[in-house]
């Protein structure tokens, strides 16, 4: 039998050191896995972490793509991290992301083919609103009826996926698409398109929003009373209640902010890189953002770096797949290892392992 014993004062060094150790352990274990698959582990690791940034053939394209891929991850993870800090578990960001995209694209398509400056801002508001109301369902069910927000928010993802399918086949379907599912391509509708702001940089409004969110969250947590309440509610719920923090208000606020940010991410994605509402529009950003939030220690700056790292494993992973013939499942396992090692190393930095029998003998 092993017993986990909480360390009275976890090392400050390891609080920041664990993500780096987790990355190194992932590289070692991942390298072993690649070697077992019969690929050169050093080449595989180099392809994943080095080539997208510095390989002459790919870097010019891959570097901006890093921002494109990291943008929605960071935006969603920032929202999630606020709730996670307060012990409010919004697991359904994927659904909020979908609803944001549907609301935002819906508003844009309603104006088609009119060209006006206010269409894109309206879409942004609608996108945030779509994510917000989808997150309000678990929030209100929790505050009114004490349901579990983890379950409700997660299950609403599947509801959102079905709404997405229905929208691509019905209401939002491109009338000139020959009966095929999927909306008009917003990329070909200038007033609604979220194009690159500076050509060749990958910088679009979603990436800008992600950076703003990082700064805003940083200020919120460091300087604002709400940030203090969030941290207090997570660390000492009873103390928070005595200090006058309303748990219900925090639930609504945290779910609302994370929902709205996920909705925004969906809107920027549908108007930009994805271009259209389609049955398979969502590709797991909402779930991956959970990993990003934890990898970044629920800290805004940490999330920024974690988002970029995660994006790197995606883009490098794609390169490794077709350059080296690695199966996609191996890349997914590699990304999973990252979370696994992070949680494991975290556990060991907060707890120490005791073997009771040995302890008895020592006495």
């Amino acid at each position, binding site marked *: 039998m092993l017993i986990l014993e909480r360390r009275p004062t976890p090392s400050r060094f390891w609080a920041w050191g664990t993500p780096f150790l987790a990355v190194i352990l992932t590289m070692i274990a991942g390298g072993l896995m690649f070697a077992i698959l019969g690929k050169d582990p050093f080449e595989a690791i180099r392809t994943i972490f080095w080539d997208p940034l510095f390989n002459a053939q790919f870097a010019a394209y*891959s570097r901006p793509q890093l921002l494109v891929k990291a943008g929605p991850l960071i935006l969603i993870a920032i929202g999630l991290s606020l709730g996670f800090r307060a012990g409010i578990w919004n697991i359904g960001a994927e659904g909020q992301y979908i609803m944001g995209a549907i609301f935002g694209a819906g508003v844009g398509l309603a104006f088609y083919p009119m060209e006006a400056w206010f269409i894109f801002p309206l879409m942004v508001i609608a996108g945030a609103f779509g994510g917000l109301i989808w997150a309000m369902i678990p929030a209100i069910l929790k505050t009114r009826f004490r349901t579990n927000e983890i379950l409700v928010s997660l299950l609403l993802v599947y509801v959102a996926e*079905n709404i997405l399918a229905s929208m691509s086949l019905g209401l939002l379907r491109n009338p000139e698409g020959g009966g095929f599912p999927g909306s008009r*391509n917003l990329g070909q509708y200038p007033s609604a398109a979220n194009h690159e702001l500076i050509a060749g940089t990958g910088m679009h409004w979603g990436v800008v929003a992600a950076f703003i969110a990082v700064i805003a969250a940083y200020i919120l947590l460091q300087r604002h009373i709400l940030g203090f309440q969030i941290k207090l509610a997570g660390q000492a719920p009873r103390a928070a209640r005595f200090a006058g923090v309303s748990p219900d208000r925090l639930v609504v606020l945290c779910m609302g902010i994370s929902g709205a940010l996920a909705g925004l991410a969906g809107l920027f994605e549908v108007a930009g*890189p994805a271009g259209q509402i389609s049955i*398979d529009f969502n*590709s797991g950003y909402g779930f991956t953002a959970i990993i990003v939030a934890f990898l970044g220690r629920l800290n805004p700056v940490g999330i920024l770096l974690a988002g970029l790292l995660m994006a790197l494993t995606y883009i490098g992973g794609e390169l490794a797949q*077709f350059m080296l013939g690695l*199966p996609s*499942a191996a890349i997914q396992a590699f990304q999973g290892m990252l979370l696994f090692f992070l949680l494991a190393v975290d556990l060991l930095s907060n707890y120490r392992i005791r073997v009771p029998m040995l302890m008895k003998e020592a006495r």
Partner: protein
Amino acid sequence: MNRRTLLASAALGLGLSFGGAAEAQMDKVKACFVYVGPIGDGGWTYQHDQGRLQLIEAFGDKVETAYQESVPEGADAERVLTQMALSGCNIIFTTSFGYMDATNAVAAKFPDVKFEHATGYKRDHPNVSTYNARFYEGRAVQGTIAGRMTKSGKIGYIASFPIPEVIMGINSYYVHARKVNPDVELSVIWAYTWFDPAKEADAAKAMIEQGVDVIASHTDSTAPLAEAAKTNGAVIGFGQASDMAEYKPSPRVSSIIDNWGPWYVKRVGALLDGSYEQVDAWEGIAGGEVLIGEITDAVPAEVKAEAEAMRDAIAAGTYHPFTGPLNKQDGSAWLGEGEVADDGTLLGMNFYVEGISGEIPQ
């Protein structure tokens, strides 16, 4: 895989190429494939990958291949395609409908790379071709077997998404079942997925409970056959996309096999000898793209003969599965006596034929 068909098609591809050389010859071609599922799905993606392997078999050192599995349809596809083009692919096959816009967008940026998009209809640039297979021809054969084999008079169709491709299949299946069994009833369950064994199994269970005893599926897993297998021969079904031979002789009594190899061999061959041109291809049983898997002995000999006659008539071009008189579901006339549906109508098909109950979801 039918080796003879492969070689014949390869020869055809090379033979055709002597007419009008459109491009310069190449010594070596790098062919790249983008797959929507894992190559081990046993259905759609598996068959595309078999086609890739045939390509290697046919050209050996003259072809180099690369592929990427489980690429989401959407923004990620565009990046994967761009990276492939940057890595030196000469021809890129994008093997799912959802890659359509990404294929065309990337094709615009790489005019020297050829793009071939499966099941799509957009060819916005001269370097984009499309290819598809007439799966509804195979459905005609399945419908014939279903109509003859059902004892309860109820047949089922597990549908994926309400897109023309699938609706075409449902209509063809029903029309040919009704032809041999005028009282047959069809129930359709929409799974809203291409590949989800659990959902597909649930759909099959629901049908079996309703008394359906012949199940066709338009989803890619073997789960519906696995459910049918639990009924001790009371319920039969068909292999979809691949042969699914492990369920022979029953419940799998026949199958539609997507045979992409000949097409890949033909196109890469054309690129090698310089005869490559932009096309919009839609081949069926005749072209070898659609194969009918062995009809097993679980089916009486006369039914088997009837189904094979149907297959051969379609292959010979003497019969088109959508030949009038046919009405739409609402009773309005669609095809007059002897009239044959044109490809445009089929590719945009958004209605059921008369006799099918239920609505196409919107």
